[in-house]
């Protein structure tokens, strides 16, 4: 890096003469070493997936989850330093609960992304702290139903006004990615971590903006993309961890939940088949699968 020896990279919050904050860029390097994480936003829900690298044979398979729930309707997955990711999730939970205590309802995904973006950005402003070593993908579902005030009693009129307006569009999926600089955007498909380039290339092929992909197919695509992204990191074993949030009519009823075991395994089988089809020379499927079935 050009910064080596110049001294402008030693303290956070200090700009280099050409306007860069090197500590933030180094934080991005930490992210680039982390297991790949992806998020896919469909019309009827959001899928999160992460390539969890097995760092020790002594770790219990399926334990040490990397995707966390915030409130009931949001999931967060991070690539980079796991402890930073956990602190980030803890902050997200506090934000969601503080929103609830004031407004008596679930925090909108966009508002949560905004608050977390501001939080992460603050860690680029002070020399006494270091930036977050994670890029986090935030997926959730804003309820499309008529929102009640928490603890509400009474129900208003039986018909007509005083409830949800017929045909009024509201709620829906939300997917955001927040980087160590505090920068965040809303995405149709997001990828971060070591295999992000391959994953992004795959996400772009899906034409997510047309919103034709169903949530179930998105689960399979997410699994496949993690497997594709793992191709460049084959010396390490991994576990695939996936979660989803569907619409109220869908399988999770607007809640963030783990993808059910059967569906996850089906998606993994399909992912391995797709990889074999792509490349005949490849060894048969990742060993990660055997781990899962223990």
């Amino acid at each position, binding site marked *: 890096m050009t910064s080596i020896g110049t001294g402008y990279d030693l303290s956070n919050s200090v700009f280099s003469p050409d306007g860069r904050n090197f500590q933030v860029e180094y934080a991005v390097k930490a992210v680039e070493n982390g297991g790949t994480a992806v998020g896919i936003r469909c019309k009827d829900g959001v899928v999160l997936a992460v390539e969890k690298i097995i760092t020790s044979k002594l770790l219990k398979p399926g334990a040490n989850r990397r995707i966390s729930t915030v409130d009931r309707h949001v999931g967060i997955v991070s690539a980079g330093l796991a402890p930073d990711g956990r602190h980030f999730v803890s902050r997200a939970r506090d934000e969601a609960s503080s929103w609830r205590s*004031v*407004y*008596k*309802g679930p925090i*909108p995904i*966009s*508002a949560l992304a*905004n608050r977390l973006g501001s939080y992460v950005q603050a860690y680029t402003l002070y020399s006494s702290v270091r930036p977050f070593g994670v890029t986090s993908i935030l997926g959730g579902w804003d309820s499309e139903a*008529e*929102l*009640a*005030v*928490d*603890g*509400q*009693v*009474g*129900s*208003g*009129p*039986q*018909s*007509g*006004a*005083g*409830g*949800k*307006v017929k045909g*009024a569009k*509201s709620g829906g999926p939300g997917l955001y990615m927040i980087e160590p600089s505090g920068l965040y955007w809303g995405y149709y498909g997001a990828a971060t971590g070591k295999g992000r380039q391959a994953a992004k290339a795959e996400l772009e092929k899906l034409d997510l903006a047309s919103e034709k992909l169903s949530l179930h197919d998105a689960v399979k695509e997410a699994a496949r993309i993690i497997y594709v992204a793992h191709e460049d990191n084959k010396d390490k074993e991994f576990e695939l961890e996936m979660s989803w949030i569907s619409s109220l009519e869908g399988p999770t009823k607007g809640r963030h939940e783990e993808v059910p075991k059967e569906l996850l395994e089906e998606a993994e089988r399909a992912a391995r088949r797709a990889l074999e089809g792509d490349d005949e020379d490849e060894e048969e499927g990742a060993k990660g699968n055997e781990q899962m079935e223990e």
Partner: protein
Amino acid sequence: MVASHGLTGMLGEDGIHVDMNHLKSGEVNLGTSIMAINFKDGVILGADSRTTTGAYIANRVTDKLTQVHDTIWCCRSGSAADTQAVADIVSYHLNMYSIVNNEAPSTQVAGALFQELCYENKDMLRLVLFVNWYTGIGHLIYRCSAGIIIAGYDPRHGGQVYSIPLGGSLHKQAYSIGGSGSTYIYGYCDANWRENMTEEEGIQFVRGALREAIKWDGSSGGVIRLVVLTAKGAQRHLYLPDTDYTGPGATY
């Protein structure tokens, strides 16, 4: 003069004796008739215009319908000072909400904020100590110190009516009546209420109900003010007692 007050009240940092009970007993109150209803295209809020201090009418043309956001309004009953303060705080928060979230707040959000303030400060907003200045005999009297009805229109939920009575509970209702005058019109409203009324029918209903409340409640009186909230925004109406509340009707 000041020294004689050493017997009562709390000595503030600045040496001024503050005695809430003395302040409260001289308070201006909205002995009131207020209501809000759902109708086909939105909501209608209504109120009389009388403000009293004891039996004296301190203001005969009060506006008890307060805007807290573009199409979220409230009817205030109880202590004028308390409810104005609460409405001002909610108004500030809703304003901030729309700026920060780049989206107009729903009526639910307004209801939640009103409730939080009324519930957490219920001790300050409820009991009023009446003291006869000259005998010094005090007695506690329940008085509607903050009874608020919230009505709003938003494109997602349409019109909605919420009521926050004394303890600070929040009730979603088809229509809501409040204030001292409301006790005289429970029968009228229950008998005449219909869902999905047209705007014209809704106005008739509110005006008819408030007319009765004003007739029987000494603490209610003056003019009838209405606000109609629909997708088109807020429109005020005014009805005067000397025309038996027939007009002038919609003002701007």
